[in-house]
Structures are given as structure tokens and as C-alpha cells.
């Protein structure tokens, strides 16, 4: 085979492979586009101001909204993050800082196993852990269930990002007479922060869409639920219960709820990317 022939062949293979990869990207994007388009077309029509401001109406009446479910979802996500972020970030730091210790290997394995546990099982666990002793469904029970799902994601992403910080930065800090704790919290953690933030927001958008862990924990509520020890409505559970109901009006509300939920998750993802990029630019210049 001549050199010219092999070069032509190489170019052919190259363009075939590039084309195949581009096709795969399109295939991956199609479901996302379809889902978004379908939810938007079904949901936007049912959205009105009442959806954001009013409580659900009793069966038979039309109108009403999901104001309590929107607030409930935000409350659950906020509580879950408050529980999971400190635990996840600190355990990620430990695993990255003491990689050889037995506790770190166990922690890493546990995080991976926990990540694979079906969310319904996590819900049942939180039911046993919080709902039974409290003798009622509550926002805190739902938050615990969601937090259990967040911790492994935050832990592993924190660990990975701390390991990505060059060892030379650590040495530079130590060489200036900084203690190990100072270097970890004053240099390594800030350097890894944009990535850790992304990991946290990935975990948030992951749990924002969860229904199963909330069924036995936060349950649902047709009214406002003050505090954190009462059954609490959430967008996902509300969508679920409306979607399985036999009424067209409730189906429309479910579509509207689904649309709001998707927009919320997309906003979180966008914020994550924006924040990461801005922080990176501040550092590198």
C-alpha cells in the first residue's frame, strides 16, 4: 500500500468516526429536546398566576395552584442541603486528605454503595429513622431522606476535586509555615471550591426531582405547612398524585407542575455553570 493510499484511508476513517460521534451527540440530545418541548407545550398553557399563589382547590372545584408545593419543595431541598453539604464536604475532605486510612477506604466504598441504593429504599429507611419515632410525616423526615441521597454525591465530588488541586499548592502553603489544617481550609478548599459547588448543585438537581423518598416521609399536604415537623407538599409528590387522579383539570395542573420543576432544575444547573466559570476566571485571570 502506498503512503498516499494509507493517508486517504486514514482521512476516511477519521471522518467516519467524527460523524459517528456527532450522531451520538444528536441521539443523546433528542430525548432531552423532546421532553422539554412536550412538557413546555403541555405545561405552559396551564400556568397562570394562581398556580404560583394559591393552594390546591378541593376536588370538584377548578382553579387553584401549587404554591404550597413549590415552597415545600424549596424547603425540603434547603433542609436536605443544610444536612448533607457539611457532612458530604467534610467527609470528602477526610477521604482526600487521608487516602490510605481504613476509614477513608470504607467511606469511599460506602459512598459508592449508598449512591446505588434505590431511592424508595432510602425513603423507607428515613421512615423508620424519623417518621416512626416522631409518629408523623414531616418535612424533616423528607429532608433526611433526600440528604441521604445527596451525601455520597457531594462526598465523592469533593474528594475528586480536592485531589485535583496540585500538590505544589499544598507544599507552598506548608513551606510558608502554615499548619496542615490552614492549608486544607485556607488554600486547598478555596482552590477546589468552584468544582465542589458544581458537585453540590448536581446533587441538588438530582434530589429536586425525587418522588419516591418523599412518599413515606414528607408525605403530602393540601395546605401550608408551617415549621419542619408537619407533613409537607412537594412538587414531585403533588405531580404524582395529580397525574394518577382521574380528573383532566388535575392532569393539567400536573403538567404545569412538571414544567415548573424542570425550569427549577435547569436554573440550578445554569447557575452552577455560571458560578463555576466566574470563579475560575477570578482565579486564573
Amino acid at each position, binding site marked *: 500500500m502506498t503512503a498516499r493510499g494509507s493517508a486517504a484511508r486514514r482521512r476516511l476513517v477519521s471522518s467516519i468516526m467524527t460523524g459517528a460521534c456527532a450522531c451520538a451527540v444528536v441521539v443523546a440530545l433528542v430525548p432531552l429536546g423532546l421532553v422539554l418541548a412536550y412538557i413546555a407545550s403541555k405545561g405552559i398553557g396551564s400556568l397562570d398566576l394562581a398556580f404560583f399563589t394559591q393552594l390546591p382547590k378541593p376536588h370538584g372545584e377548578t382553579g387553584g395552584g401549587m404554591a404550597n408545593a413549590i415552597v415545600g419543595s424549596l424547603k425540603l431541598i434547603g433542609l436536605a442541603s443544610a444536612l448533607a453539604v457539611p457532612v458530604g464536604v467534610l467527609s470528602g475532605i477526610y477521604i482526600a486528605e487521608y487516602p490510605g486510612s481504613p476509614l477513608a477506604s470504607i467511606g469511599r466504598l460506602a459512598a459508592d454503595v449508598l449512591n446505588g441504593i434505590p431511592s424508595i429504599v432510602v425513603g423507607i429507611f428515613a421512615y423508620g429513622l424519623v417518621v416512626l419515632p416522631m409518629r408523623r410525616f414531616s418535612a424533616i423526615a423528607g429532608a433526611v431522606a433526600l440528604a441521604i441521597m445527596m451525601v455520597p454525591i457531594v462526598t465523592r465530588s469533593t474528594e475528586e476535586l480536592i485531589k485535583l488541586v496540585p500538590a505544589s499548592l499544598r507544599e507552598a502553603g506548608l513551606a510558608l509555615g502554615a499548619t496542615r489544617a*490552614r492549608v486544607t481550609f485556607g488554600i486547598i478548599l478555596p482552590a477546589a471550591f468552584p468544582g465542589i459547588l458544581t458537585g453540590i448543585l448536581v446533587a441538588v438537581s438530582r434530589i429536586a426531582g425525587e418522588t419516591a423518598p418523599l412518599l413515606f416521609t414528607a408525605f403530602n399536604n393540601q395546605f401550608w405547612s408551617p415549621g419542619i415537623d408537619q407533613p409537607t407538599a412537594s412538587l414531585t409528590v403533588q405531580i404524582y398524585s395529580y397525574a394518577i387522579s382521574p380528573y383532566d383539570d388535575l392532569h393539567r395542573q400536573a403538567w404545569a407542575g412538571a414544567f415548573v420543576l424542570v425550569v427549577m432544575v435547569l436554573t440550578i444547573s445554569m447557575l452552577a455553570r455560571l458560578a463555576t466559570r466566574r470563579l475560575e476566571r477570578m482565579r486564573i485571570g
Partner: protein
Amino acid sequence: MMAAKPTKPEEEEPVTASQLAQKTPRPSATTARPPEVSAHARSGESASTGASAGAPGSSASPASPAVVRMEARNLDFFYGPAQALYQISLPIERNAVTALIGPSGCGKSTFLRCLNRMNDIIPKSRVVGTVTLDGVDIYGGEVDVVDLRRRVGMVFQKSNPFPKSIYENVAYGLRINRIGRRSQIAERVEKALREAALWDEVKDRLDAPGMGLSGGQQQRLCIARALAIEPEVILMDEPASALDPIATQKVEDLIYQLKSSYTIVIVTHNMQQAARVSDYTAFFMLGKLVEFDRTVKIFTNPGKAITEDYITGRFG
């Protein structure tokens, strides 16, 4: 303070009063001329001439530093089971530049990192022997490693500014060591940046990220960062190896100027650089100190054939 002056050999003459104040009694083996070095590292000492630039009043061999700031004695170092340094004994003179040269993997960086206990962070590493700073064993139980590293600063091969602003990079060491008030920090940041010959280039953009500077500027920023806390000794691990010739020249000029106020130890692969900037040169090979002498002597009349082969580029 002069009353504290011990009755020591005449090599101690140039000791300043302030240094004496810091000095603790040291074993008699630590005269200005360590017997270990003579015994196993220098065979050609009889050929030494009396030329004594930078060592006024010294009546000892030219290879004997007038005032020993740091000294390694019979230092062994192990990475796990692998021994990296064998019986290194080396004095480091105050306000002079000591260059460590040798082929890759010869232990010169390992030795350098023993001087501020940077190797402590390597798991399963082990040090045998002593390293003294002003006569005190830095591996002794009463020495605080954080305090040691404040006194013995370090500049690394690859510039490693923190992901912070130029100002905060230099101020970091001051802040963590609680040196100075706010206004004093600003003064000391400026002083350090001036000492590192970087001030004029960055004075208008102190808030810009340190990582946005050019490679040579980043390295000078790291030098400024090390200078800000006013260490007594500065260790430099191939500080110019990643720099272009112009930036290298700037760093070398800087080393020459810093010599008057600091004690400097520099690891370099660059023979010409060692010859240009250093007063003393130690030649390492396979974890052993082959030869230590005045730089002039090493480069003009080395005591060992293997040193000559290395500096003339026959191997390495």
C-alpha cells in the same frame, strides 16, 4: 551581648552579635570546618588555595564556611525501604549561596527538602542523622516544624502561586503567621515585591490574580511570597528551570542581591548557573556527597575526577 561569646577557634571571629544571641551551645564537632566533610567528601583539600572571597578573617581551608548557618551531619534519608541519601555532611554558610548540583535522581532535591522538613509530608519516609539551624537540631523533639518553615523558606521548581490575588499571595504568609497589622502588611508586601524585583511590574494591578502573570513573574511572585515573612534561610529548588533566559537572568540577579540579607541554598541542573550565582558548590551523585568546596575551586580545580567529568559535561 558580646560577653556571651564562647571561647572558640578563630574561625568564629566574624560572628555577629545578633547571631550570637540566637546561638545555643553546640557540640565541638561543629567547628567551621566539619571533619566529616574533610574525611569523606574532599580528597583534594591540600590543593586548596588561601583565596577567601566572602570569608573575611577565616584562617581555615577555603572550603570551610566562615559562619555556619545550617549544617547536616551524617544525614541518611529513606523513602520507605529505598535509601536516597547516604551520610551527607554539609555546612551551609550564612549570607552565602550554596549550590547543590548533580545528575537527576542524585538526591539534591531530597537533601534540600530535608532542610525545612518538607519531606515530613511524604508517607513512610525516614531521616537519620542531624540537621542543625544555628546549632539546634531541627529534627529534635522541641522544634516546631511550623516555626522552622517560617525561618527556612522555600521556592519551588514550578511556580505555584495560590489562586488568589497578587497582593494576597504575598500577604498570605504574614497573615497565617500573624505578622504585622493591616498597614504593616501592605508595607511588607511592597517590600517583598520590591526585593523580588516585581513591584514595578505589578504595582498597578495588585488585585489581579497571581496565576494571570507570566511564568517568570509567577516565579518572582513565589520568591516575594517566601521573602515576605523574612525567613533566615531560603531554599530554592531549581527556581529557574522552567524560565526563559531573560526571566532566568532576572532570578539570578535577584539571588545575587538577596545574598546580603539571606542565606541561600539552590538546587540547579545548570552548571553555568551554579558557577554564576553560588559561593559554595556541593556535588551529589547516587545519594552521596561527592565533593564540597568553594565554587571557584569546584569549577576550576575539582578534587575528584568524577566531579570534573560531570561539570565538563562528560556525563549526566
